[in-house]
């Protein structure tokens, strides 16, 4: 398994502001992932973050709105920019650890409420 921590665990933010979520892993991993879970919805992949290269975004997500950093193999950040109430969600980071890289390990999530 993997130890994954996220900061903050929750936050309440004002419309128009930005929030940066941090994800720390206990050992080096090549690929990290950021998901969003809106209320009553399924987990949706936002982007894949590789160390040393630009993040790869899924359809419907753009770098200007969700800039991602991956400065090393144990850390990543996701910024939710210019927030609106529709951004209220749980944001999760995850990674693959198995040798066949099937299983996703998830962080505890960051619960964001935008007023």
């Amino acid at each position, binding site marked *: 398994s993997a130890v*994954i921590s996220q900061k903050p665990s929750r936050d309440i933010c004002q419309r128009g502001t930005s929030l940066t979520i941090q994800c720390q892993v206990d050992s080096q991993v090549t*690929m990290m*992932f950021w998901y969003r879970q809106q209320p*009553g*919805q*399924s*987990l*949706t*992949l936002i982007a*894949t973050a590789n160390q040393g290269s630009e993040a790869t975004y*899924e359809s419907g997500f753009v770098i200007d709105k969700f800039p991602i950093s991956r400065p090393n193999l144990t850390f990543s950040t996701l910024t939710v920019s210019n927030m609106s109430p529709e951004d209220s969600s749980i944001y*999760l980071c995850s990674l*693959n650890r198995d040798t066949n*890289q*099937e*299983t*996703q*390990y*998830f*962080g*505890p*999530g960051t619960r964001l409420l935008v007023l």
Partner: protein
Amino acid sequence: AQRVTQPEKLLSVFKGAPVELKCNYSYSGSPELFWYVQYSRQRLQLLLRHISRESIKGFTADLNKGETSFHLKKPFAQEEDSAMYYCALKVPGTYKYIFGTGTRLKVLA
């Protein structure tokens, strides 16, 4: 389109009763399917995957390609099984997972 459907938002059963959490998928090739579980105040974690054909905590899931289903079953539910269950499809050859909306299982004493 690739999609995972869990038709039940909430499933309540009595302790000792059989449980079946439904999952249907839409995918043109041979998918890799998983069940993830989230217990109260815990993070999302893997329960089982169809490739392993394993039974975890008494749960099993069989991939039925004809019906495009991957239902999760347990013959006798326990109170500690109460949790949120997510069915997920991994697109082969990629790292992309598609999750269903989840089913909350409540096992009543």
